[in-house]
């Protein structure tokens, strides 16, 4: 009985992870560069799942060595993997962790590219660029086109919001939100967690921290990108 359960658990975990790898949803959970080790582990687990199925009779010690407790615990990720559709962290987690608005403390691993046209820079490239530049003229007045999700709280005026992304080094456990303040002419109707592609221009808001604001010119709702995090 335990053996059949275990074989099903192993195969479910394996198929779930392999599927996540190939449809790209693994990036909701871990940094892309580590997905290959997850795939390798998933294949090994699947192999042993099949082994238990085939040689079920020979594996006598399994019934003795494995407790129902471990089996019950292992069913949890199986059920969640099968039923929950992968989603990135939400605004609730962002507010609980605290939004970083001072760009100089973000420490992102994407390299800063100084030669690229400002409109071509992604959210991650902008953060990395803002982090490394010391000259405000490098960004003030420059056009931006970036994608992120909306964060609004009571401290903001009703024509302001943060366009945010989570910065992830390893997995969602360490993800921290970084936000750029966006200012519109009109009242904001988007809600928290709406994903937007915005166009605008950087303007100065520098106290002594590095937190430039974006004057909004245009925004449209988009679907969640393949990699919702920046690394």
């Amino acid at each position, binding site marked *: 009985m335990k053996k059949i359960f*275990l074989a099903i*658990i192993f195969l479910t*975990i394996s198929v779930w*992870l392999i599927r*996540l790898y190939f449809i790209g949803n*693994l990036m*909701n*959970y*871990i940094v892309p560069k*580590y997905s290959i*080790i*997850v795939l*390798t*582990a998933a294949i*090994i*687990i699947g192999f*042993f799942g099949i*082994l*238990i199925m085939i*040689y079920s009779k*020979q*594996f006598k*010690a*399994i019934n003795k*060595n*494995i*407790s129902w*407790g*471990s*089996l019950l*615990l*292992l069913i*949890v*990720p199986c059920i*969640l*993997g099968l039923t*929950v559709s*992968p*989603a*990135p*962290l*939400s*605004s*609730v*987690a962002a507010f*609980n*962790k*605290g939004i970083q608005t001072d760009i100089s403390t973000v*420490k992102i691993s994407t390299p800063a590219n100084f030669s690229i046209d400002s409109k071509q820079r992604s959210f991650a490239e902008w953060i990395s660029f803002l982090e490394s530049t010391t000259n405000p003229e490098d960004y003030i007045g420059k056009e931006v086109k970036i994608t992120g999700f909306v964060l609004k709280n009571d401290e903001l005026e009703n024509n302001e919001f943060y366009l945010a992304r989570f910065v992830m*080094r*390893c*997995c*969602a*456990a*360490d993800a*921290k939100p970084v936000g750029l303040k966006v200012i519109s002419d009109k009242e904001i109707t988007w809600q928290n*967690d709406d994903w937007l592609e915005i166009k605008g221009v950087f303007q100065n808001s520098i106290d002594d921290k590095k937190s430039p604001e974006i004057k909004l010119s245009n925004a449209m709702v988009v679907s969640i990108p393949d990699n919702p995090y920046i690394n």
Partner: protein
Amino acid sequence: MVLQDIITVFLSIFIEALPFIVFGVLISSLLHIFVKSEQILATLPKNKFLQNIIMSFLGVFFPVCECGNIPVARKLIQKNLPPSAAISFLLAAPVLNPIVIIATIIAFPDNPEIIWGRIGLSFMIAIIVGFIFSFATKDEILIKSIQVNKTCDHHHRGKKLHAFSEHFIGELSTMAGILVFGAGIAAASQNLIPKEFMVSVAENPFLAICSMMLLAFIISICSTTDAFFALAYAHQFTSPALLAFLVFGPMIDIKSLLLMQRIFKIKALIYLVLLVFGLVLFSTLLMTHLTL
């Protein structure tokens, strides 16, 4: 939304940590079947202090966490390894091994003090505690049954592959089960405990270090994966507090105490827990004051 975030963090820790359990168990199962413990004992020097040092490094060859090492230690003690050397091995091996070090580097790429601190402190504490225990007699440390029992770990030819698979499947299920438990606690506490409360605990070095050790003790997560778990607290807690978690957890937790009481007397275990607790507290508090 909160529930969704908890599930995302839970699955994220589970997915990131699972490969390290798989690779760790794979290697430990290979060694379990193909390496004879007599070969290790034959190369050991007579000097007890040197024994402690060498046994601390044995984790390089047994790259598993606590649960995999305790049966190894039990077997070695039955083959006449001094208990103090076995203690050094049990305390150091869960950290001083390649898989755990790689996992720690992946989890904390920008914190060399955590990577080196973890390696250095684990090594030092393992040697000191082993050295202290080398003044006690076998009767004081070991339970009676282990001193008489001799187990047969002889594997018959042709059955090695079978024994390997069985060992792998058993260990993997147990450790992955504990990982589910630990990842669940990490995900829930990260998203449910108010930030203000966490910050107020984290701001007091003594409280922060003690609560991180208590957390490590309760969740009993494997050393191959505890670095990913600690990440969940890296926003609020300082490096010394995270180190206390990463050094204390692999040495002492509920799960390993349950396994160790099949080798050591309760009194010896109490001394062991107090010694390790004291040393980790002292060294991490010292670190806090040095870095301030």
